[in-house]
C-alpha cells in the first residue's frame, strides 16, 4: 500500500512547488529584461510532477531531465544562486556559464543534467540505473521526458533495456499535451503514453499530474518497486504548461485556445495542493504566505548574486573539453 506522507513531507513538497513556481516566474521576468540569453523553457504548471516524484528520492538517486529542466533541478535540491548565475551565463553558475538553461546540472544531488536533446535523457538514466544495479547500491534513476519525446527512438531503446535488465529505473512522462506547438493528437495516435509500457514488459500508470498527492502516491509505489529490484515503471502524468513552449507568453497563442489554458489553470497544482493542505490542517494560510516570502527573499538574493557575478574569462573557453591529469 501507498505510504502516507508525513506532515513534514507535505510541507517539503509544497515548498518545492513554490520554489519552482517563483523561480520560473522570476526567470521569465529576467528573460524579458534581457538578462537571460538564449532559450528559456518554463516549467510553470507542471510543478506537481517534479515535486511529487522527487520527494521519494535521495541525493544519491539520479535523475535526467529535459530542456524544461529547472523544476527538476530545484526539486532535486538545486541551489537558486548557482542556477541564476548559470542562466545569466556567469562564471559562478552551475556549469561555469558553459551550459545555460538547457544544461543546468548538479552531480552532488544526482541531477545528471537538463538536456537540449529531446529524448536525450532516457538512455542516460537507463545507464545510471544499470550502474546502480551493477554497483549494488539501492539507488534509483529517473528520467523525465515529454509526450513529444516519447516518439523518439531513444526512449524506446532505453525502456526496452531497462525492462530487460530489470533496472531500478523510472520513466516519467510529463504529458503536457504538446510537443512544442504540436498537439499530442497530431504527434501520436494514442491518448495515453502509458500504453507503451506493456510493449516493454513494464507497468504503465496514468496519473493526474496536477494533483501532487496522486503524483506522490504513484511515484512512491514505482520507486519502492524499483528499489526492491522489481524493475522499471512508466509513469504518465497528465499536466499542462501555463506558458508558451519557449519564453513567457501565456495567453493568445496561435496553437492553443486560451479557454484550454483556463481550464487547466483552474486546476493549478499549487492552488489545489494549498487548499488541501489547509483542509488537512497541515499548513495555515499564514504559513503558506511565509513560504512565499522566504522563497522570494532567497530568489532576490540569488538574482543579486548572479547579477554581481563576473562573466567567464574567455581564457576558460577550452577548459573541461577533456578531463586532464591534475586539472
Amino acid at each position, binding site marked *: 500500500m501507498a505510504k502516507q506522507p508525513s506532515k513534514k513531507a507535505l510541507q517539503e513538497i509544497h515548498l518545492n512547488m513554490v520554489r519552482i513556481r517563483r523561480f520560473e516566474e522570476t526567470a521569465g521576468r529576467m528573460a524579458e529584461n534581457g538578462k537571460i540569453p*538564449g532559450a528559456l523553457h518554463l516549467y510553470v504548471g507542471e510543478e506537481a510532477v517534479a515535486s511529487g516524484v522527487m520527494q521519494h528520492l535521495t541525493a544519491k538517486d539520479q535523475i535526467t531531465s529535459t530542456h524544461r529542466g529547472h523544476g527538476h533541478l530545484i526539486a532535486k535540491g538545486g541551489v537558486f544562486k548557482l542556477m541564476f548565475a548559470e542562466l545569466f*551565463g556567469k562564471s559562478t553558475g552551475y556549469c561555469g*556559464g*558553459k551550459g545555460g538553461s538547457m544544461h543546468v546540472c548538479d552531480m552532488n544531488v544526482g541531477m545528471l543534467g537538463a538536456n537540449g536533446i529531446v529524448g536525450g535523457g532516457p538512455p542516460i538514466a537507463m545507464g545510471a540505473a544499470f550502474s546502480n544495479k551493477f554497483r549494488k547500491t539501492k539507488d534509483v534513476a529517473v528520467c523525465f521526458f515529454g509526450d513529444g519525446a516519447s516518439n523518439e527512438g531513444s526512449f524506446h531503446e532505453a525502456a526496452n533495456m531497462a525492462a530487460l535488465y530489470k533496472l531500478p529505473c523510472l520513466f516519467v512522462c510529463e504529458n503536457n499535451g504538446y510537443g512544442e506547438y*504540436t498537439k499530442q493528437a497530431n504527434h501520436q495516435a494514442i491518448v495515453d503514453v502509458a500504453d507503451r509500457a506493456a510493449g516493454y514488459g513494464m507497468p504503465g500508470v496514468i496519473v493526474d499530474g496536477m494533483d501532487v498527492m496522486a503524483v506522490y502516491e504513484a511515484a512512491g509505489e514505482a520507486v519502492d518497486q524499483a528499489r526492491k529490484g522489481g524493475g522499471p515503471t512508466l509513469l504518465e502524468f497528465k499536466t499542462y504548461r501555463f506558458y508558451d513552449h519557449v519564453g513567457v507568453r501565456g495567453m493568445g497563442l496561435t496553437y492553443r485556445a486560451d479557454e484550454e489554458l483556463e481550464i487547466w489553470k483552474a486546476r493549478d497544482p499549487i492552488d489545489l495542493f494549498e487548499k488541501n493542505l489547509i483542509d488537512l490542517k497541515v499548513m495555515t494560510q499564514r504559513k503558506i504566505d511565509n513560504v512565499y516570502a522566504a522563497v522570494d527573499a532567497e530568489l532576490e538574493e540569488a538574482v543579486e548574486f548572479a547579477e554581481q557575478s563576473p562573466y567567464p574569462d574567455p581564457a*576558460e573557453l577550452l577548459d573541461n*573539453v577533456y578531463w586532464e591529469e591534475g586539472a
Partner: protein
Amino acid sequence: MSEAEQLEPRKLTYLAAITEGVSEVLKEQDNAFLAGEDVAGAGSVFGIFGGLLDEFGPKRVIDTPISEKGIIGLGVGASATGCRPIVDIMFMDFMGECMDEITNQMAKMRFMFGGAVNLPVTVTTMSGGGRNLAAQHSQCLEAWLAHLPGIKVVMPATPYDAKGLIIAATRDNNPVFVVLSKMLVAEEGEVPEGAYEVEIGKAAIAKEGGDFTIVAHGRMLHEALSAATQLKALGVDVEVIDPRSIQPFDTQTVIDSIKKTHRALVVHEAVQFGGIGGEIVAQIQELAFDYLDAPIGRLGAPFSPVPFSPVLENVYIPNADRIVEKVKETLGL
C-alpha cells in the same frame, strides 16, 4: 504588379527567400510536400516556413512527431516511390538522431541498387551558433555530410542563393541537403520573383580582388566580406569566394583565384579540426602548389563544444576581426 515596380530590384530577407523558395517548389511540383517537426502550424523555427500551411494545406505541409529517423525515412521511402519530398531536420545538431538513415539508406540506396532507384529528396536544416543556444543547438556539421558519397550539400549565404539553391535542390534527382544559417534569417538581399535555380556545385565570387583569396561559406561569407573591407583600408585587395556548395565542391574556382593571389585563407564556422577546411586546403596545395607564396591558412571554431555564455560564444565563433588577423599574419603585416 506594374512594370515600374518590377524594374526596382526586389529585396527580401534570407528567411522570406527560404519560404518563397519552398513555396515555388510546392507550386511547381505536384508530388512535392514539406514535412518536419513544427513546419506546418508553427512555420518552424524563426518562421522560415511561415504561411506555407495556409497556402498549400495540411496535405502538403505536414507536422511530424519528434522522430528524426522517421522523418528521414519518410523522405527516403516517399522519394523512392514517386514523391519529391522536402523534409526538415529543425536544427543540424539533431542530425545525429538520423545519421544512419542519412548515411546507410539515403546516401547509398541508389549505388547499392546499381542505379535502380532515384531519391529526389531535399533535406533542410538550420546550422550555427550566435544565439546563445549552447552546445546542442549551435553546431555546423557539414563535414559529416560532405564525407558521404551519394548526397549533395549546399549552404546558401544570401537570400538569392537560399531561394535558388532550394529550388535547384528539389529539382535534382539526388538527395540534397540545404544547410541554412540561423544567424542570417534577417539578412536582406535581392531576390527575383518566380522560380530560378542556382547551380549546385558552382562557387560564387562574392568579391573580386587580386591580393589574397578568402574562401568562406554560410554565415562566414559575411564576416569575410567585412574583413575584406577592413583589409582594403590596409591596402590588401581580397577576393572572397563563397563555395555555396560543399558537395560537390567547386575546386576550380578556388584554384583560379589562388593562381592570381598566391595566398589563401579558408574560413568556416564549424570546428576547425576535421572540418571541411582541411579538404579544401589539401586540394588547393595539391593543385596549385607552385603558385603558393605562403601556407594556406584555416580559421574555424576552436576545439570545444559551443559554449553558452555570450562572452564565450563571442570568442568562439570566427568573425571578421579574427579573419583580418589571420590574413595579416599570413602576409606578415
